[in-house]
């Protein structure tokens, strides 16, 4: 085995250093409200992250960087969340730890079990089932029906569907030759995707519509043999986008607020303008942790955590986060290119595109470069569903980074 622990020591240790200093600072910040359990949890998290990175570099034959990058992102995120809200920070520690556990679990399960590419139908049905469940049982939150509550636990089905969709698309194109033979086989996928977009539209989850469309379009562009279909798809999507703008007022409002948020500063533009205030306050180096006012932004821990990071840790840290995502996406693509197994190649691509597009959309939204949509930053934003599903996706990506057998049948 050629993996030498020594290569990965530097970033692993830097991460440890960063977390330690940041945690120390946070303990000082909360010195009056500190209790034993928080200290223990905080230290444990640093420990867990360090150990996981160490273990990973020893036992896994594939890529190590993605986990390293992700844990750095998660660390930056949790420091910010903890600073903003004591309890949310606490919960986020739990989510990250659970996420790491799920990561390893997914890794082992996906690696051992074969035949993932044959489950096209199951992926479809599961997604549709979740969509219907959301529509029937879902609770409306900030205009979008996103959540299901079952027995005290609430989660976002869309997060799961994202992964299912990637698996579905991958299995479709892996078995494309077989689908081609069926009547209408070439159009199965596109039909299903439009169905999904339709569901999401019903849910008023415009951010997810954007994600799904981009994801599907990108994968279709790469893999569909029917090039005219790809072109047709692009045209239809653009057209429906315009149509959506014209017909639906809630789409129009997003655009108008984007173009001139100052005009709507008292109403719908409040969040984005507060976000802009936070970002401009920080300058390049930030105000310093605990010295800014990120709490002026409503719902800051979720979508606007990036603005808080820019305010207190500076634009430079914000750019650092963007760079980390860029490297993550690049790594994912590299993994995909190196993978001979077609199914996992597409899956790796899908997951990388997902991370890339999702983070771009939300970053662009909170700095007002593009209209705002309500989606989370993978690994950084506060929230269980997002964190867990992101780690699961990462686990699958980790599997895809290794040399796998090509099933010949």
């Amino acid at each position, binding site marked *: 085995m050629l993996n*030498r622990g020594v290569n990965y020591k530097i970033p692993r240790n830097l991460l440890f250093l*960063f977390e330690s*200093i*940041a945690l120390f600072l946070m303990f000082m*910040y909360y010195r009056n409200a500190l209790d034993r359990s928080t200290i223990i949890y905080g230290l444990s998290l640093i420990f867990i992250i360090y150990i996981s990175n160490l273990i990973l570099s020893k036992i896994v034959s594939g890529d190590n960087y993605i986990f390293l990058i992700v844990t750095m992102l998660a660390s*930056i995120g949790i420091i910010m969340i903890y600073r903003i809200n004591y309890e949310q920070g606490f919960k986020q520690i739990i989510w990250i730890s659970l996420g790491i556990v799920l990561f390893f679990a997914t890794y082992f399960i996906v690696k051992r079990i074969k035949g993932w590419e044959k489950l096209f139908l199951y992926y479809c049905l599961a997604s549709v089932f979740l969509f219907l469940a959301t529509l029937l049982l879902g609770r409306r939150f900030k205009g979008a029906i996103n959540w299901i509550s079952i027995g005290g636990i609430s989660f976002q089905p869309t997060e799961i569907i994202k992964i299912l969709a990637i698996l579905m698309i991958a299995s479709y194109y892996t078995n494309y030759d077989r689908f081609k033979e069926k009547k209408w086989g070439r159009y199965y996928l596109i039909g299903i995707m439009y169905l999904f977009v339709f569901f999401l539209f019903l849910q008023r989850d415009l951010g997810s519509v954007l994600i799904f469309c981009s994801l599907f379009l990108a994968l279709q562009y790469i893999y569909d043999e029917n090039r005219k279909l790809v072109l047709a798809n692009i045209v239809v999507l653009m057209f429906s986008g315009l149509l959506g703008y014209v017909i639906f007022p809630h789409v129009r409002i997003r655009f108008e607020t984007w173009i001139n948020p100052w005009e709507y500063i008292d109403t719908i533009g409040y969040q984005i303008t507060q976000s802009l205030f936070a970002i401009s306050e920080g300058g390049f180096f930030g105000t310093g942790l605990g010295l800014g006012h990120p709490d002026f932004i409503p719902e800051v821990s979720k979508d606007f955590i990036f603005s808080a990071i820019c305010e207190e840790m500076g634009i430079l840290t914000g750019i*650092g986060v963007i760079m980390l995502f860029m490297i993550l996406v690049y790594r994912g693509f590299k993994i995909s290119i190196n993978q001979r197994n077609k199914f996992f190649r597409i899956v790796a691509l899908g997951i990388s595109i997902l991370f890339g597009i999702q983070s771009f959309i939300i970053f662009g939204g909170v700095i007002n470069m593009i209209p705002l949509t309500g989606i989370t930053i993978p690994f950084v934003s506060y929230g269980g569903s997002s964190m867990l599903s992101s780690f699961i996706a990462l686990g699958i990506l980790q599997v895809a980074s290794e040399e796998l057998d090509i099933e010949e049948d």
Partner: protein
Amino acid sequence: MFNILSLVFKYVFIVIIYMFIFSIIKLIYLDIKGIRPIPADSGTYLKLINRKDTLPFKVKEYYPLEDNVFLGRGNDNEIVIKDPYISKKHLRIVKDEDEYFLEDLKSANGTYVNGDRVMDVVKLNNGDRISVGQVEFLFVNKE
């Protein structure tokens, strides 16, 4: 007190984060160069002679050799090559004192060193060409 700490640390954080980013970029860059740099002290390995993309199965450029290495189609070998012309357990390379020996494990299609078929055990010398299945290796021993 906290204020001063926070003010100082914000610069520290940025430095650390960027060092982190650059160290990862550096590692990736080294990776991109294609070939993992062979550390100087692992002096004994098998180097692939065939062109990798002419072979219909995965095979690596380098296989480092430890004291006891099995090669074959089966997954429990140290060196796994999915070549249909290679047996499940095809051959073994053993280090004894400071010399390396190759033993063919009664493979179906045989193992050839420098063109000669190996019947039992053969001592390997630096520069020997080993043919197994469709694959040809160069035995490198710098020591």
